[in-house]
């Protein structure tokens, strides 16, 4: 028994076998790197809006995934020489396994990307992040949790699967073990030793998987102690704790806050007195349809600098679509919008608007802050990181400056104590205030609010509207889509009422809300007021 164990141990450390293990690892490592990169490209191609690109990627995956890797290897090794391409054994194995891995990892990566909520990329686009930056900073970090287990499976399969390559003269572990068995017939001992070597290698992969999964498990970020307790050390340097002077804010129990107006004016480049007479935002004859359904039918509107315009209307009236056209989150079928006299992501060619290639830069340059109904905070980033993301990665600010600005903004909206928290640990009202801070951090010249309070519990609406009111007082140019009649009445300079893709009436709130001319406006206001009464009545 002892002798058998000794013999087994001897084979486990047998250089001839270990050399084979090393070969397997080398091939798998290089092929995995190449395969994952190519797989990422294929996954993106599969998600492309351009049909031929999708088909190309699909065909590749269909073919490679559908044919045995053994045949692919033999083909690469023995058929390519016919056309003058003679790859050596190692190269053939690496290329063959990488091409194969690409097909499989493309689908795993695509699955990971699809698992990330679309709201994430919409928010990233609104802040001028390019598709690649969005992928790298927002989508992939969140997709990693879904991608990693599949990738670890593939890596382990590949390490073991390199044995197929013995047909093209790769002398890896299994093949070498078979040769020893072919010579001495001690299949049990030799195969057991090979099995142990494989287990050691695959255990290393499993451990790496565990480490990476922790690394990309952003839910651990809010309480890093868990990870630290598990590993005895921190896997990730946390964002430096906030050691900045407490901002001049007076947080109340509800988080009601007072903005530091002087500082905010410098931040947003609005030091008063620069009011322009011509409208800041101009929309002309805007048409938009989804399929056969016409959403906007020739809408004209303007917003002056420093003006607060509230857009109201029943759902399906086209108000959100109109709002999203301002920063080109929605494309325009016909008509045009200018902000400060510029098209955003369009150029005029022969009198017609054409989309320009670099939409992201155009959005970034326009500096339009956007706040979403469902907050659309980046789920894997803390409140502070959410606010810092666009300034650092889109506008190229230094981390120090962005950190300083973000800290002050979060303090201002009453969230100093939550700066290191992930969005899922915040209430809806808190999340929306982070959303506002995030929009302010890019020094916006215009703020778009898309039903900012619709997704909130009634008792949380107030804290968000309080921030909006103060922004309005500051002279910020704002377009707000909302059903909050009280807010519109008190804060709006102008109210636009929309229905069925057109503007029904517009004017000062006293006119549109206080004395609506149109029956449709009156009916809508009645409905909203009844609903508001119910909401208020409920908690009582």
């Amino acid at each position: 028994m002892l002798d058998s164990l000794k013999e087994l141990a001897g084979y486990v450390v047998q250089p001839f076998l270990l050399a084979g293990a090393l070969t397997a690892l080398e091939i798998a490592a290089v092929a995995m790197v190449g395969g994952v990169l190519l797989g990422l490209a294929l996954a993106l191609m599969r998600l492309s809006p351009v049909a031929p690109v999708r088909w190309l990627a699909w065909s590749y995956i269909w073919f490679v995934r559908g044919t045995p890797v053994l045949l692919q290897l033999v083909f690469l090794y023995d058929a390519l020489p016919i056309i003058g391409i003679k790859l050596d054994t190692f190269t053939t194995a690496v290329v063959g396994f990488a091409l194969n891995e690409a097909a499989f990892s493309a689908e795993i990566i695509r699955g990971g990307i699809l698992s990330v909520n679309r709201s994430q990329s919409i928010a990233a686009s609104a802040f001028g992040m390019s598709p690649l930056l969005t992928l790298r900073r927002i989508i992939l970090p969140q997709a990693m949790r879904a991608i990693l287990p599949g990738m670890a499976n593939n890596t382990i399969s590949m390490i073991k699967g390199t044995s197929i390559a013995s047909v093209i003269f790769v002398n890896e572990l299994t093949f070498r073990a078979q040769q020893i068995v072919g010579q001495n017939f001690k299949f049990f001992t030799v195969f057991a030793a090979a099995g142990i070597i494989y287990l050691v290698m695959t255990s290393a992969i499993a451990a790496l998987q565990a480490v990476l999964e922790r690394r990309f498990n952003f839910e651990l970020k809010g309480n890093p102690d868990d990870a630290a307790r598990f590993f005895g050390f921190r896997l990730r340097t946390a964002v430096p704790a906030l050691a900045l002077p407490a901002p001049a804010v007076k947080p109340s129990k509800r988080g009601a806050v007072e903005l530091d107006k002087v500082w905010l004016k410098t931040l947003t480049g609005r030091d008063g007195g620069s009011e322009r007479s011509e409208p800041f935002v101009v929309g002309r004859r805007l048409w938009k349809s989804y399929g056969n359904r016409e959403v906007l039918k020739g809408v004209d509107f303007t917003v002056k600098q420093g003006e607060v315009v509230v857009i109201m209307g029943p759902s399906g009236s086209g108000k959100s679509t109109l709002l999203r056209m301002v920063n080109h989150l929605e494309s325009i079928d016909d008509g045009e919008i200018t902000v400060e006299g510029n098209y955003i992501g369009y150029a005029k060619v022969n009198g017609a608007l054409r989309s320009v290639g670099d939409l992201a830069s155009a959005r970034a340059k326009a500096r339009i802050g956007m706040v979403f109904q469902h907050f659309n905070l980046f789920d894997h980033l803390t409140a502070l990181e959410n606010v810092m993301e666009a300034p650092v990665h889109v506008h190229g600010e230094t981390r120090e400056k962005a950190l300083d600005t973000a800290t002050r903004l979060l303090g201002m909206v009453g969230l100093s104590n939550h700066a290191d928290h992930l969005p899922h640990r915040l209430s809806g009202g808190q999340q929306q205030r982070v959303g506002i801070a995030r929009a302010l951090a890019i020094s916006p010249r215009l703020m778009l609010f898309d039903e900012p309070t619709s997704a909130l519990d009634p008792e949380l609406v107030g804290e968000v509207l309080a921030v909006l009111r103060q922004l309005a007082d500051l002279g910020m140019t704002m377009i707000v889509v909302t059903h909050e009649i009280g807010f519109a009445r008190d804060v709006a300079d102008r109210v636009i009422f929309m229905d069925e893709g057109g503007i029904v009436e517009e004017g000062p709130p006293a006119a549109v809300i206080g004395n609506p001319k149109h029956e449709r406006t009156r009916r809508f206001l009645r409905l909203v007021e009844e609903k508001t009464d119910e909401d208020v009545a409920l908690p009582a």
Partner: protein
Amino acid sequence: MQISTGVKRILSIVAVATAATFCVGQAMADDMKCHPEQLATKYPSLVGKTIKIATDGATPPYSMRDPNNFDNLIGLDNDMARAAFACIGLPVDFMVGSWSGLLPAVIAGQADVMWDTLYYTPERAKEADFVVYLRAATGGLVQKNNPKKIKSLDDVCGVRATAGLGSTEEAVFRDLSAKCVAAGKPEIEIVTFPDIPAGSRLVKNDRADLLMIDLGLVNSFIAADPDAFDLAFSILTDYKVGVGVAKNNKELTQAVFDALKILQADGTEEAIYKKYNFDHKQALPTEILTK
């Protein structure tokens, strides 16, 4: 002096004859001797090449790992290959891969020769040229003391027989099984194996009664585990075993043929056979087969 003249004449005749004999003998000996230094004149296209020999290293006694150093390859085929290319005057490099990938690699030009229990068949000769040097023999491997008393292929009806998947032996078993059934005897229960050691384990673990494969292999199994196996029978077949060379490499084919002829004549081949306890009666005067 008459006599002396006569003697002189005789002597001179003897001398001429002796000289002639000697010269002819010298010439013949020259033919049957290796001249690696003449590579450039004999086979100019091969100058500067390192011959890549495709082998699988897992087919004893033809190609296997040296038990004292797994990095070395030994075996009848590998030793013959080394001797042949030393004789030609070319360095060699062994490429070790699984058996089924060897001939395709030679055809594709990734390797120069396959020298590893390669049976000549007209089918294979369409893809590669052969230099044959050995007549294959088949052996029947059974458990120790031959419990099923299998003495020849006449005793196989109703036994559990195993052969390599797609091998000639499998076809033989299928043929025989049909004959058994036709003769009203039980059919042969045929199991195929993916690699040869796996086949031997079928017999050892009593999952099969008879394994039929190349006699050299069968003898290796018995030598390695004499307590487990016995030889049931052996049959000298008409199969020729040889070296596979790509069709477009005629000079290499010729060089291998010339070298094998010398090795067969000068006793090198016999010595190698002896080293691996291989019956030299299986040796075959070398010839080139291209069809």
